[in-house]
């Protein structure tokens, strides 16, 4: 069995797998952050207007602002979880490639 050949093949395929998986993750994370900032800006702008019109209380406004911070923390946790999921998918993918390659090489 030519292990050098197997490792070289698996490494090549792993690079492609990693590139695809982590590019998707980075793209999604960037979009997520942009969406959050836009939504927060729009929501706080509307809340400031409602506060000025007396339709909400100052403590409602303060709660909204503090809630955005909690929401940002939840988003960060989600992204951390999704990054772990991508790592698991990558690791398992590489192992599967390796296992397939080894068993394919067995006469």
């Amino acid at each position, binding site marked *: 069995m030519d292990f050098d050949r197997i490792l070289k093949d698996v490494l090549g395929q792993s690079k492609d797998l990693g590139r695809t998986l982590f590019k998707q993750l980075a793209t999604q994370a960037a979009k997520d952050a942009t969406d959050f900032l836009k939504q927060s800006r729009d*929501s706080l702008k509307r809340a400031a207007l409602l506060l000025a019109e007396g339709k*909400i209380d100052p403590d409602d406004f303060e709660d909204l602002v503090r*809630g*955005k911070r909690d929401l940002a923390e939840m988003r960060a946790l*989600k992204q951390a*979880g*999704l990054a772990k999921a991508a790592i698991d998918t990558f690791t398992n993918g590489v*192992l599967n490639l390796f*296992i397939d390659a080894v068993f394919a090489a*067995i006469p």
Partner: protein
Amino acid sequence: MNASLRSVLLPIFASLLLAGCSTIATYDKVAYDKATGAKAEALILMDRATDSYSAHSKEVEAVRLTIAKAYEYDRGRNLNAETVKMWEILRAPEGNLFGGFLRRWREKGSLKPDAIAIKKPDIEQAFDEIIALEIGKPKPKKD
């Protein structure tokens, strides 16, 4: 190595290797259903907050229980720290998401319609973060 021996050894070898490589729990349909159910109940309850808290205290307790069950279910799963922490932020009475919303409703007696309307998308989003992470977890291997 003959084909039948290979077919026996391959799944064993693969399982042993893969078992040690996980960093996060796999997707769980029950957890997903609990989170989506809790979201629906919480958002419906929020609409009632223009009324007095005391008139809806039983409904509040029912929704709290639904969320507590979802939280405890997720707490019992291995490699699930991010989801557990997210539930804790969402339900914390001293925080400013759903737990904080219920506290403020109780303290103020009732809330203004615009205060509810402006808060609702954030609570919805908070549940969606938990749901999105569940959907994004690796799918479990089929036997």
